[in-house]
């Protein structure tokens, strides 16, 4: 535990030495996308320099190496999330959003029928809402929302009622707006008790603490490479082998077929059924490097570090601004992570971000692709600061300084 050092992590991230507007960057936007360590960037460069080839269908050496690199990444991801069936359960997609579309349009379209309920929550990202709305259009399912309480947590007081008719509970592991971490394990039990499956939107989980799908006892998990120190262009849908085997293909094309005739086709077995076309090979290599890097840090260490940072930031925001900067999210670190949405008195989030940029501070304004949640709290937008393993208290220092300036300017 003592070996973790945010300072060392920071030294591994090339972009964190960048100077913007005369100030070294203060990166507080890991919730949107994390920054890549040198080892991830180099792994991809070396891949392209030495062993790029298309996978699966080659017998020459670099093609084998590329295939092994690609499949090796699948294996590493499976281990990282403790997938019970190993690499046979890891489907590579392009991002979390595609993962949810695959879930809805393959599993959902075949297992759900008119009147069946998909239960999501009001704090979901659009990636875990819109695909269900699309499925509703074609199949007539019901999409039901678990309400969010004034304490910024799921209101589970009516859970039994909410679960009636539910075939799938699809829930975020951590809200990308509030930082709230719903009790996924309890929800998994509740879902299974009524015979429903449970999917977890793990996009905000992977880089910030241990993610153990076996321990959580969920059935699906979706996440993105670019939010876990890895590259853009790759995501994952994990699901149990028994479930995966029942899912029909989604995208059609090369690689996902066993046979194609002029009169029809036979889909392939296993994960390849869902990977049509040339997959994100270099991206898988980069993701593997990211997984290795995170394993090196120790995800418990990262979780502890971010908890400390978050508690410190929450406390100082309160002390410094005395209510003029309101945190939209739980004010303690119980079941919450390092995503801090701010509502700054008299200053629109867009303007907050603009002023902060002058200090080199990177925060994200907007609805964060969670419009139902924003509506719930009567907000159009927040300015969101979010931590990563490379974040340090000095980032909070600069954030506070810049917020002070914004308040003064618009005051």
């Amino acid at each position: 535990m003592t070996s973790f050092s945010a300072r060392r992590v920071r030294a591994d991230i090339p972009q964190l030495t960048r100077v913007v507007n005369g100030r070294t960057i203060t990166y507080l936007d890991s919730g949107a996308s994390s920054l890549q360590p040198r080892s991830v960037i180099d792994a991809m460069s070396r891949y392209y320099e030495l062993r790029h080839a298309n996978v699966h269908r080659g017998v020459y050496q670099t093609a084998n190496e590329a295939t092994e690199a690609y499949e090796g990444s699948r294996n590493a991801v499976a281990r990282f999330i403790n997938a019970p069936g190993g690499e046979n359960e890891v489907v590579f997609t392009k991002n979390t959003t595609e993962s949810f579309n695959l879930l809805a349009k393959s599993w959902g379209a075949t297992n759900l029928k008119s009147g069946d309920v998909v239960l999501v929550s009001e704090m979901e990202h659009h990636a875990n809402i819109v695909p269900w709305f699309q499925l509703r259009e074609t199949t007539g399912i019901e999409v039901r929302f678990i309400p969010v309480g004034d304490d910024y947590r799921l209101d589970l007081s009516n859970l039994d009622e909410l679960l009636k008719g539910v075939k799938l509970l699809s829930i975020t592991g951590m809200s990308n707006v509030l930082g709230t971490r719903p009790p996924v394990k309890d929800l998994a039990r509740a879902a299974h008790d009524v015979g429903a499956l449970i999917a977890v939107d793990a996009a905000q989980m992977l880089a910030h603490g241990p993610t153990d799908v076996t321990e959580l006892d969920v059935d699906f998990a979706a996440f993105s490479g670019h939010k876990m120190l890895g590259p853009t262009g790759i995501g994952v849908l994990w699901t149990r082998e028994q479930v995966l085997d029942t899912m029909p293909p989604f995208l059609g094309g090369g690689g996902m077929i066993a046979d194609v005739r002029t009169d029809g086709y036979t889909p392939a077995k296993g994960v390849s059924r869902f990977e049509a076309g040339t997959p994100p090979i270099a991206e898988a290599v980069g993701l593997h490097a990211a997984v290795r890097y995170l394993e090196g840090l120790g995800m418990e260490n990262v979780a502890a570090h971010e908890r400390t940072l978050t508690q410190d930031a929450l406390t100082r925001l309160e002390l410094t601004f005395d209510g003029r900067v309101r945190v939209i999210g739980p004010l303690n670190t119980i079941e919450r992570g390092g995503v801090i949405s701010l509502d700054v008195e008299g200053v629109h989030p867009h303007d907050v971000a603009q002023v902060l940029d002058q200090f080199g501070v990177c925060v994200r304004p907007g609805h964060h692709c969670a419009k139902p949640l924003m509506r719930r709290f009567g907000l159009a937008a927040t300015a969101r600061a979010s931590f990563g393993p490379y974040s340090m208290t000095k980032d909070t220092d600069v954030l506070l300084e810049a917020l002070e300036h914004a308040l003064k300017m618009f005051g």
Partner: protein
Amino acid sequence: MSNLEDLYREIILDHYRSPRNRGELATPPAHRVEGFNPLCGDEVVVYLDVRDGVLADIKLTGHGCSISQSSSSLMSGAVKGKTIDEVNATIDSFKKLMTVHESALAKEEDHDDEVDLRRLGELAALQGVVKFPVRIKCATLAWNTLRQGLEELV
């Protein structure tokens, strides 16, 4: 921080704090049109009362950043009471101002003259926005919504 002050001129902050022509009009007779900026969540609702080819009244609601809100406030003042042709000409001038790209500005400082700043009056305060390309959408939101509303009325 000269850049920031280019963007947030006093007149902009003033219109942001005290927006003009805020409110609704009864529909009908007025026409209601909504604009979204899906990227940042800004919303503007424009109420148009057009009579005999004249924009007799205009009201706005919505929410958004200082740029989108001050721009809609400034817009309302600039177009209210004008003929539709005049309104369209003002929209064109403003949108032209907003498409003068930063790099062009940097190259020829007097490039601005292409847009008749005097004709724009107070609106010219928004010209600093072009140095922040990502904010251009904020500044033009109300204008695009107004144009859409006018087109719907034809």
